[in-house]
């Protein structure tokens, strides 16, 4: 981990904005466009790419905590662990150069989604009895009805919805960073993750 060199002033200025981007984009997608996805980790992936895995992880974890605080909903706070892992994995993958071409970006999204599903499942199963209080809960019911236990059902449910969501997030970040003038990107500690030299 490059703790000192990743957590520069510009990274610190970026993280709160990225946290808010997570929340606001999640809102646009669900309220304005009414799309059937969450897309609430765009900011996390963005930070992970521009400032490294740990910065991404911090962004993810704090996003869930702050979301819980601002919308008075503590039940999403335990999933800070998932968001933390999403940031770590995305940052690690970005360090391997996956944001430099579209196919690698998609693979990265799928991988990150799989990790998210595997991390979320025990949290969902242990604390929330396998459900999330959202529309995908019928999937849990379906898997349990076909003989899975709660943990298995929650994992399978996550494996269906998470990779899709994260892949779209990765693609959006890929398009945005490709579209951003390099003048503004070059100041971030891990600008090399996106700038083709």
């Amino acid at each position: 981990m490059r703790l000192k060199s990743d957590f520069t002033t510009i990274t610190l200025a970026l993280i709160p904005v990225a946290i808010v981007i997570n929340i606001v984009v999640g809102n646009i997608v669900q309220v304005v466009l009414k799309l059937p996805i969450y897309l609430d980790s765009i900011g996390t992936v963005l930070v992970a790419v521009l400032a490294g895995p740990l910065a991404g992880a911090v962004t993810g974890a704090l996003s869930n905590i702050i979301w819980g605080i601002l919308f008075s909903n503590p039940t999403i706070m335990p999933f800070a662990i998932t968001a933390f892992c999403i940031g770590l994995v995305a940052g690690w993958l970005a360090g391997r150069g996956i944001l430099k071409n579209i196919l690698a970006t998609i693979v990265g999204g799928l991988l990150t989604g799989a990790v998210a599903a595997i991390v979320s499942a025990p949290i969902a199963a242990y604390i929330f009895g396998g459900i999330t209080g959202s529309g995908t809960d019928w999937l849990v019911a379906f898997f349990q009805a076909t003989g899975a236990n709660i943990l298995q059902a929650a994992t399978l449910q996550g494996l269906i919805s998470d990779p899709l969501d994260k892949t779209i997030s990765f693609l959006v970040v890929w398009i945005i960073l490709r579209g951003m003038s390099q003048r503004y990107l070059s100041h971030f500690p891990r600008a090399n993750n996106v700038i083709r030299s």
Partner: protein
Amino acid sequence: MKISVNDLHFAYPNGVEVLRELSFEISSGERVAIIGQNGAGKSTLVKHFNGLLKPSRGFVTIGDWDTQSHTVAQMAQRVGFLFQNPDEQIFKRRVFDEVAFGPSNLGLSPEEIERHVSAALSRVGLSDMREMHPYDLLPARRKLVALASVLAMETPILVLDEPTIGQDGRGLARLGALIDDLTQQGKTIITISHDMDFCAEHFERIMVMKQGRMLIDGATHDVFARFELLAEAFLEPPQMTRLGRALGLPETVTTVNEFLGAYAKTREPRH
């Protein structure tokens, strides 16, 4: 295309009323500047012209369309809208693509889009920057990109919210010439501006708003002649109007040329 505003009231869901009893018409080809302090309701009013806001009471029609029964995207065929901050709309990697976004939403053919975009870019003086990244341009130029992206939609009505901010002398002159030129083509131009001198030079009708109401609505000369009412809205008349008044010129002047004409006249030998 005529704009009619009839007994317009607007209140936010929390009940705070920001527009009260507004009724007026703006005919085709008019140049109208709306002035007033921040919070007077200017932006709220113009957002009714393309349906971004819908009246709580009364109605607004653009030609034969009631804004109530059309989506904002539909209204975009009739009303072009330049927002204050260009960064709140730019998302393409090339100036050309950014300007083409509006026309392509309107469903124009690629040839038409090319023609509209080229014309708009040359109007704002950015023809040789069409391949550049908008964010590599200076903020003043980014604002011109946003203006071009509105012009390229070739709507009969244009709303410009604070177009002069950040423009230097040259940008200001270009903007003024553009406005004069567009009115020649019969377009209606409505602007919100704090720049009284600019309003005086290029707009023939002034609306003064205060606390959600219309304080004065009239020809530029008549409005700027009313120093006391303007002061009530915390506004100062244009430089030439103040100078003319201080020198005791018999008529109200608002522009440099008017001032010179009127001043020369006072010096003609009296008969």
